[in-house]
């Protein structure tokens, strides 16, 4: 699906640019886009190196295992395929908590560690497992308690009550997340029936 969308976006853009007589923007946009990709990766690099180092300590000290056992039952309901006490559960739990607190910088490394652990359990290394799809659904919808960036921007533009969007964001993101989880369940059962 991603192959088709990617192709579609690029080809349509070039055709539209040709019709509008904006062909010169195409090559500029290609280089700009590539540069953005690199800048974003660099931003990610420092964050990933730090958090993955820190999480290794939590893993070795047994802290992650403790978290997995304590909060396992909650995560286990969402991810029935993960064995009890598996490190993936600890990482998933940290990923969800960081998302809720609006700590995007910390959420991504935890989510990626969770992905690595899920990949170890995945029988087909090139195809996403149901657990991976569920983790992705949670992260794309992402329940948010404190939308830090938006509050900062509202303050900057002189809002009289910058925090009033906390309730609306929490409500809207909860609805979206619930919907994502239900949809994920539906597709999971449908593909499982097809494979059988």
């Amino acid at each position, binding site marked *: 699906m991603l192959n088709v969308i990617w192709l579609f976006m690029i080809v349509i853009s070039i055709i539209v640019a040709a019709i509008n007589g904006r062909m010169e923007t195409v090559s500029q946009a290609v280089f700009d*886009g590539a540069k953005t*990709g690199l800048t974003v990766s660099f931003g990610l690099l420092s964050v990933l190196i730090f*958090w993955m180092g820190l999480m290794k300590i939590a893993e070795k000290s047994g802290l992650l295992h403790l978290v997995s056992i304590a909060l396992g039952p909650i995560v286990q309901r969402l991810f029935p395929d993960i064995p009890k006490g598996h490190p993936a559960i600890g990482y998933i739990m940290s990923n969800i908590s960081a998302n809720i*607190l609006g700590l995007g910088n910390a959420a991504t490394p935890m989510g990626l560690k969770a992905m690595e652990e899920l990949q170890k359990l995945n029988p087909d290394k090139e195809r*996403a497992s149901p657990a*991976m799809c569920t983790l*992705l659904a949670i992260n*794309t919808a992402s329940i948010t308690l404190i939308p830090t960036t938006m509050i900062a921007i509202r303050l900057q533009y002189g809002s009289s009550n910058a925090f009033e969007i906390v*309730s609306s964001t929490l409500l*809207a993101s909860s609805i979206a997340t619930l919907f994502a989880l239900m949809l994920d369940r539906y597709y999971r059962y449908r593909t499982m029936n097809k494979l059988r």
Partner: protein
Amino acid sequence: MYQVVNLLSIWAIPCFIAFILTHGWWKKVPVYDTFVEGAKGGLVTTIRILPHLVAMMVAITLFRQSGALDLFLELIKPLLVFLHIPSEIVPLALLRPLSGTGSLAIATDIIAQYGPDSMIGRLASTMQGSTDTTFYVLTVYFGAVGIRNSMYALKVGLWSDLMGVVASLVVVAVLF
């Protein structure tokens, strides 16, 4: 409320870092060596993600700068007028799943133009805050472990983005 939330977001990470380090030290883990060992993983992961991000960003930038996004907006305009959706918010809703920085720029622009406490300003804040960038998350998470076949994950992500937009419209209309 303001102070509590502010304090929580300032204190959460430092406390978390201090707690992990002291717990590791207490359990006799060589903290520095372990940190460096784990940190190497971050380097490997980033290098694996890099080509995916470049590919995605090229497509997204091209789509915006060529005018394809504007054309698409123009095409669906009658539908939006019919549904009573304010047209100023549409570019934000469309760009939200594609680009986090792009949609943030639009949300900031809306707030600067209409004011943060206006209806449309609140709507923009809620929409931007309530979902994450689906294409970015998919690219990074699956790219990091080398998944090629994303199964139904993209479909679920995009439908829930739409749900997030609808939920934002309804919630803001009801709450404020």
